[in-house]
């Protein structure tokens, strides 16, 4: 039984790691900008499409296949550098201070636009390029074969948690972000350029989402509709952890991963429903998430 569970566990943890990248970006953007970017999932799939295109290009030119690892990282930076400032300056900043309804509608409009743009540019066929996964090979422990790439994914996710914590607690930028999150007006009045922080935080969020998408290309591939699925899953994870909580998102993606293992093991047809069931179970008892704090209601 253990031999059956452990590969399944690793598989689920690897996919949980991918969702974690999207969720932590979403939660970061939410805590700094106080806007839930409904189009966040599209940036994940755009990252995937860009990475797949570059990897396929590398393969077609028969360049050194190890370049595809650099390509995965580069595509995330590329998407963040283009879409981060563009979306934040062009669209999201107009919604600051507006009602949440307006923010949802505007980013939902963006979501529809981005999903259709991807369909127009990349077509409806799915992209799949597993060169990075094949290069890393497999490890066999106790007769069970593991994909090294999946272990890399889990390691990357841990690295992101630690990296973000270090960034926020120990760098100047992190302190500035904390100040803006704690009290936006006060931060502005003591001379912090909040607009710059917003652009940086939003781009960082886009980077994390695009990185998730890029890293997903070698394992699960990129297909139309991935953006919507990722968005909902990322939100589920962010909501379980508590919106705005980085470690919360990490723990929540673990929970979602384990819920999937359990579902696959007990009722395989309910595999897709498991994350939402976990979300509903958590939100019914803690509407503000596991690590979220209760905010006072306005009178």
């Amino acid at each position, binding site marked *: 039984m253990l031999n059956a569970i452990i590969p399944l566990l690793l598989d689920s943890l690897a996919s949980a790691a991918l969702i974690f990248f999207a969720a932590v970006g979403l939660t970061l953007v939410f805590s700094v900008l106080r806007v*839930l970017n409904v189009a966040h999932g599209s940036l994940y799939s755009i990252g995937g499409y860009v990475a797949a295109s570059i990897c396929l290009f590398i393969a077609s030119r028969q360049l050194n296949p190890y370049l595809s690892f650099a390509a995965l990282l580069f595509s995330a930076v590329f998407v963040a550098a283009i879409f981060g400032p563009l979306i934040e300056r062009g669209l999201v900043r107009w919604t600051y201070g507006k009602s949440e309804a307006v923010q*949802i509608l*505007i980013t939902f409009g963006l979501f529809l636009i981005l999903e259709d743009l991807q369909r127009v540019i990349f077509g409806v066929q799915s992209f799949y390029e597993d060169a990075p996964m094949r290069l890393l090979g497999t490890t066999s422990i106790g007769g069970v074969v593991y994909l090294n790439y999946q272990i890399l994914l889990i390691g990357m996710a841990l690295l992101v948690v630690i990296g973000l914590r270090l960034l926020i607690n120990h760098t100047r930028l992190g302190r500035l972000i904390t100040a803006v999150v704690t009290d936006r007006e006060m931060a502005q009045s003591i001379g912090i350029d909040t607009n710059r922080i917003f652009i940086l935080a939003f781009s960082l969020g886009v980077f994390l989402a695009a990185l998730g998408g890029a890293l997903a290309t070698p394992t699960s591939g990129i297909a139309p509709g991935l953006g919507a699925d990722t968005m909902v899953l990322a939100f589920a994870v962010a909501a379980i952890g508590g919106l705005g909580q980085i470690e919360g998102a990490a723990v929540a993606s673990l929970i979602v991963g384990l819920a999937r293992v359990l579902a696959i093991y007990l009722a395989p047809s309910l595999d897709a429903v498991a994350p*939402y069931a976990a979300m509903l179970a958590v939100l019914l008892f803690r509407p503000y998430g596991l690590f979220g704090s209760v905010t006072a209601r306005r009178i």
Partner: protein
Amino acid sequence: MRTIPAAIAVLMLAVLPIAAPWLQFVLTLAIAKGFAALGVAVLLRAGLISIGHAMFFAASAYGVAFLARAGINDLGLLLILSVLAGALAGAVAGSFLVRYRAIFFAMLNLAVSMVFYALCAKLYGVTGGTDGMPVPVPAVFGIVFAEPVFKSVLFYLSLALMVLVGLAVQRYLNSPLGHALSAVNTNEIRLEYLGIPVWAVLLIAYVISAALAGLGGAIAGFAIGRVVPDFAFWTASGHLVLIAVLGGIGGVPGAFIGALFLELLHSAAVTVTDSWNLIVGMTLIIVIMFMPQGVYGLFARKEASSL
């Protein structure tokens, strides 16, 4: 009063298919989506955005298909039962969804509708998977019409329902229960202090909105003759939100005007481009940014200034 222009508009809609028969299908579908969008607009009054309402649209259309498979073959009975199915689905989903506000409400609606979509597409044995289920031509008061005649009957029935249900919803929105919705949007804690149970106000609104979406879904199922999981896809929910926003949250006619506008635009756009969601998304952003009162709001404002 606005009765006369509204009556003229309905009359024009009634004679339009005689002049241009191809419009009949487009208009039937527009009215169907108008019902669903009206449901979204009801919740919008309370500041709640549902990006999952296509679920109830699809649930009721599937309900019709299942009932038809079980041997029920009367249009009136099918419509009533399917609306009840929509309302029942709304009561179940609403009972836990109305606890949430803003982002959580929007995203949980989306999540529930995506689970529903996934189940419809995956349970091949029950729902026919992505092939969907056929919706046969039912009997109207015991008379079985040929398909083209039935489609005409369906159109005029939907038109009549639009007026009747529209008036009923208007009454609901003007009742204390309806006004409580905008009060929830303004300040729900005050409402609680006044002794009004907010969750009951919202649950009633949610069930009504689901029933409206259900009515629309049943009509769309009859008009198309088939129900597929795509009825429940999130882009369909997105269109409903756009229609509700286009029409403005001001009035009942807004939802139908928005639906007509969008359906006509759609049938014009498909000949040029297939990037329909791109247009929908852009229109949504432009409407929100530049005319937050909606298209209907433009007319309403003109009327107000002339008084």
